[in-house]
């Protein structure tokens, strides 16, 4: 089942709410005042206001580049479906037809677990 999931669509949907919540939380936590600010209190508050007001438009772009293709189901497989590959110093051998051997090069050409 893992093999046929079009993961690009799937992870994008599930991740977005988490990232948006996270980045909004960061904005609230970033209370400022690290000592680097030489622009004065008025400027700082102006920056904060504008920053908060742009959260909605800027954060989806940020979350969109987070690529969390790894999903829980990816970590589950049936041991009986595993095709063994044995490496024997200068060559190799493999179960099934998903992997081909050419000298010391093992090429996996099909979806599956090896």
């Amino acid at each position, binding site marked *: 089942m*893992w*093999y046929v999931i079009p993961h690009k669509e799937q992870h994008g949907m599930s991740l977005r709410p988490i990232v948006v919540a996270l980045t909004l939380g960061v904005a609230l936590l970033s209370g*400022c005042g*690290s000592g680097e600010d030489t622009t004065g209190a008025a400027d700082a508050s102006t920056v904060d206001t504008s920053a908060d007001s742009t959260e909605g438009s800027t954060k989806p772009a940020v979350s969109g580049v987070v690529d969390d*293709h790894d999903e829980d189901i990816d970590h589950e497989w049936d041991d009986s479906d595993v095709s*063994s590959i044995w490496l024997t110093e200068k060559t190799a051998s493999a179960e099934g037809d998903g992997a081909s051997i050419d000298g*010391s090069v*093992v090429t996996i050409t099909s979806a599956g677990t090896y």
Partner: protein
Amino acid sequence: MSGTLGVGRIVVDADSDENVRLILNGADIANSTTSPFVVDNASEVMVVLAEGTTNTLSDTAGYVFADAETDEPDAALFSTADLTIAGTGTLVVDGNFNDGIASKDGLVIAGGTIDIDAADDAVHSNDTITITGGDSTLASADDALHADANIVIDAGTITVTDSYEGIESAIITINDGDIDITSSDDGLMRPLAMPPAPRWGVLEPNRPARASTSCTSTEAPSASTPRVTGSTPTGWR
């Protein structure tokens, strides 16, 4: 996959919509003229480190490319597809040519004890790196973790024993995890245009990296804003 290839190579060349899971169950693969482990084509590849096993990928500085226009693969574990490292075993990567582990797409470290020594970046992605577990020990001549777009650390232990810059990306988000960075330059770095004074972008060595230190940029938050949230990286120096 188990055993040793003294001079050999593992290649994944599946269809673009196919996922491949490779369980390293005590595999030791070395190559002297190219990468010992390359993903040429797939949708996703997961490398699982089997419990109780130690697996090794090693190359040399003497890569030979097909022609003058080709400069890839250039890492001991090189992927053109989404790559995930998982499991509870150990992976030792000795990258003598360039990077240790590199993906041109997304890269997730979900588990494993990972020990990388690289001539350039220890872990490199042309897109994103997401770390959700594992215990990584990284030594690099350049960046320990480098992603062009985004690095997110949610969990895991990351120990950078040697680096020029520890973690470099346009956006760095540390939500949790136990992170210890030794760098000769910046511990955390974004390689984009800096505001007049270093505020958001550069957290220098010897300066604690906390959320409260990175908040007074005159720039509005943007896609190029690094964020340090949650736990404080320990052992900052």
